[in-house]
């Protein structure tokens, strides 16, 4: 039920993001979803890719610090109120979201939300109990 996400440490310098994209592209790696968290000095790029092992390998080779984190991918209908349906039960159970990002699947008229929780297992339990669709890794990597 968990999805593996790649995270990359980037300094706030021009061209660093382009470099990552180029390396991934050259190696035939497809980005499924991404988000960039910025601070004054550095950023953290978070990616879901089709081939995470290879992505990690090529990025490390190029000298980047790469981490792999377990996140949870949730699918909802792309309509008003979709996000609230997920967040309300979580907040009722006191589960903290560390960060999240989302993308829309045009073909299926669905939205996919990527969550990083403080307590992943508990979050999955709550989501399942509330009949929310959780995508497994393979489903996300091959979207």
């Amino acid at each position, binding site marked *: 039920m968990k999805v593996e996400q790649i995270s990359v*440490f980037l300094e706030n310098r021009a061209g660093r993001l382009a470099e990552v994209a180029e390396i991934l592209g050259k190696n035939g790696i497809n980005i499924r979803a991404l988000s960039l968290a910025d601070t004054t000095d*550095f950023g*953290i790029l*978070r990616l879901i890719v089709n081939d995470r092992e290879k992505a990690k390998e090529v990025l490390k080779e190029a*000298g980047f*610090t*790469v*981490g792999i984190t377990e996140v949870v991918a949730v699918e909802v209908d792309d309509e008003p109120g979709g996000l609230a349906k997920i967040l309300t039960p979580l907040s009722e159970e006191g589960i903290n979201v*560390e960060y999240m990002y989302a993308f829309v699947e045009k073909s299926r008229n669905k939205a996919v939300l990527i969550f990083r929780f403080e307590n992943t297992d508990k979050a999955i339990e709550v989501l399942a109990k509330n009949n929310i669709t959780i995508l497994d890794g393979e489903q996300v990597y091959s979207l």
Partner: protein
Amino acid sequence: MIWNDEMETLPREALEALQLKRLKQVVERVYATVPFYRKKFQEAGITPDDIKSLDDLKRLPFTTKEDLRENYPFGMFAVPLKQVVRIHASSGTTGKPTVVGYTKRDIETWSELMARSLYAAGVTKEDIIQNAYGYGLFTGGLGVHYGAEKIGATVIPISGGHSKRQIMIMKDFGATVLTCTPSYALHLAEVAEEMGVEPRSTILKVGIFGAEPWTEEMRREIEELWNIKAIDIYGLSEIIGPGVSIECEEAQNGLHIFEDHFIPEIIDPETGENLPYGEYGELVITTITKEAFPVIRYRTRDITRLIKEPCICGRTFVRMDRVRGRTDDMLIIRGVNVFPSQIEEILISTKGVLPHYMIIVDREGTLDTLEVQVEVDEKIFSDEVRKLQQLARKIEQNIKETIGISAKVKLVEPKTLQRFEGKARRVIDKRKLFNGGK
């Protein structure tokens, strides 16, 4: 102006006779009371009786900062602790600071030397001294403070920092003398201008600057900006604190060493051989009157030269040139002494591992900045911004807690730091501190 006319203008012959008498006394005393010195003298095959002339001083072994560390905290004291009325400390090369002690008479001596220093700079009873050196274990603040009291001038013990308040108080309280580091004096001028206060419009007339190296260009700039006379002062806690030597306002050319209390030598830092007057080398000082914490041939690691020619002010003391560099890797950042090894210790203790790091010292505008760049490798990486920021803040906090200065910790990508011969170069000092010298 000369505070202690008798001592400060003593003919050389009489001065040297006094030095010899005091040197013999102090050598006898440390031999009798400090096991460290006795052992070292014995190893060198010397007894106090062998000191028959000032020239014999060079037969005595050196004392170094490492010796002080090994005898931490009170092993170098020459009096029982109950006679010690004050303790100060300065940065050590590792977590343990260097501890120095003073008897009541030492405090009086120090006050006298600071009174001489202030007077040499033209400060009198009528003056209002804004003392912006840091107070506390650092000797700068309290050193100036006691000297000013001795003269009977008014002290505003404002200590360091809070620049806007410094300007407000300088203006409202009518300060006539400013004491701080030279770079802080430049910074204050900037702050004054930002606040709409024209520095030249204040009634400040003299500034006494020290605790960090500076140049003639800086002096001219400070004098021009503030319309004051800028005087260089020198000292180090291991010797007594500020008040080892000072420029006179008449010549502003070389710092008079108070030779009735200290014997200076210049050595070749490599060989330890004495160098003649006029040649640059490492300054070595022997204290000849201190009771609680006498030091014999202490290697200051400061590079300078001694000037023997008489000065127009009438003092007969030898002068030392501006300090032109260091023979070790100590950094002086905003007047605080920092050893790279201290930063390394902090990094290890914060994270349990030693990441690759680099220390970058720069001067932004007029203030020194300390940046520690830490490579983010997999051992310390997290995908959460918060955790990485917390790590950076924690290191900053630990540097502040242990060394006492604000540092900026910047997380950088791995292998971006320059490495030389496979080993990382640890320090980049972008400031231009020294003009000339080695």
